[in-house]
């Protein structure tokens, strides 16, 4: 019991102290506007599988910016969404081709500080049913246990 409490206290301490170690290539607060939250729905048009950050492009048919929702008929609006380093996913067998062009996705994040750009951070990128884009992306949502023949090879 005492050990459990100790570990709990340590977990909290570690979580609190990890702020300093959460360094990254760039700080997102400098690039994106906290007053411009976006929700995007649309189909993937291009995946830039590049360092330091992958970019996933989509044609959004529904765009909500700072609470204002617009449904776009016709060609929609092209958005680019910033992710992390693709190398992490490559090591798990996930490649640029894992997400097929035309896949319908939902993205929430914040628009760039320059509002003339239709770019946002991919705070949460999912399929339309909510599954994370690069977790269980073979369509089953199941852990990668090799049981699914469509699973990308490791």
């Amino acid at each position: 019991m005492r050990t459990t409490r100790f570990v709990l206290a340590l977990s909290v301490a570690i979580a609190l102290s990890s702020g300093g170690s959460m360094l990254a290539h760039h700080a997102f607060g400098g690039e994106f506007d906290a007053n411009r939250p976006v929700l995007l729905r649309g189909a993937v048009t291009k995946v830039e599988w590049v360092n330091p950050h992958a970019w996933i492009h989509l044609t959004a048919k529904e765009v909500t910016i700072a609470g204002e929702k617009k449904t776009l008929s016709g060609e929609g609006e092209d958005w680019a969404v910033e992710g992390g380093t693709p190398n992490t996913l490559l090591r798990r067998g996930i490649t640029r081709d894992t997400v097929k062009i035309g896949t319908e996705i939902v993205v929430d994040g914040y628009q760039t500080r320059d509002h003339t750009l239709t770019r946002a951070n991919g705070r949460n990128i999912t399929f339309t049913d909510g599954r994370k884009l690069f977790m269980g992306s073979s369509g089953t949502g199941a852990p990668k246990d090799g049981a699914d023949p469509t699973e990308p090879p490791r």
Partner: protein
Amino acid sequence: MRTHQLTSALVLAVIASWSASIIGQGSAGQSVRPRAAASTTIARTPDGQPDLQGLYDVATLTPLERPAAFGNTLSLTDEQARKLEQAVADRKERLALPSDGNRAAPPVGGDGSTGAAGNVGGYNNFWIDNGTQYVTVDGQKRTSIIVDPANGRVPALLPEATKRNAARLLQTTSDEQESSDPGLERAANAYDDPERRPLGERCLLGFGSTSGPPALPVLYNNLHQIVQTRNTVMIINEMNHDVRVVRIGGQHLAPTVRKWMGDSIGRWEGDTLVIDTTNFTDKTRFRGSSENLHVVERISRIDDKTLLYRFTVEDPTTWATPWTGEYTWPVTDEQMFEYACHEANYALGNILRGARQRDRESAAKRSENR
């Protein structure tokens, strides 16, 4: 045979405790006996030196600095380690669970996230690869990479260093290795031009001292490769593909020659590779250091799958005492991938464009008030 193994284990334990007892006594230049495997059993290069070559993944849950809750406790009990590692695994599993497909946009004014996620939430956890376990040294899971001073924390900055760093903030030349993003509102001038942005953001160095020296684990891309010849050791770092070239038996360059990762020369002390690095630029600024930064790394082989990486940092114009850290470099069978940072660094452009928009808005406000 079993007695022999037990005796060997005891001898190793005694050596280990002896080594631990001398931690803290050395300055950066002083030697510390390695706790490596028996010298006769390790792989060697044709010239007889230990073969340190290989590809290593140094990701670990052990932080550089020990959380204050651990005090002077260097190691976790097995149960503590198991529970903490499980807590991290559980968290990662939670973050991988599906979200609501019909969710709304995040809140106006930011989502309250801290660190690099900077109140806008960063990106999904599946991009992160910061390890699953605490570092094991001498059979014990470590609470921090820093082993000296005893509290496992970087010593306090000297008053002159605090003053120097404060002046840098006022000048808003942000040549740190990583971005801690002071924010447009707090340090607007730090966004005036690319030269004011952090080295990592500009793709000049990986952030978080991933290349070093000293080389430290970061959020992802923690692979290092060592390539070794008789007179040169090269360390390739996945992030930014920063490459360090260590001249064995060489002399340091003239003090006027300054380099991002310093000037590294090496020597063998027994079976330990000792790398001495000076000649840093005044822009590298490792945890508030100056161009007087001096790093001594000691790399030795523990077994055929593990290196021990130990480093001592000193800078008499930054800290009153040197400080030392150590952690293991486990070999990996993963691949190192390309990291062409400049080719796709749209973030820097986005950041500067955002600042220019703010400039326009401020100018418009000023003319309105006239």
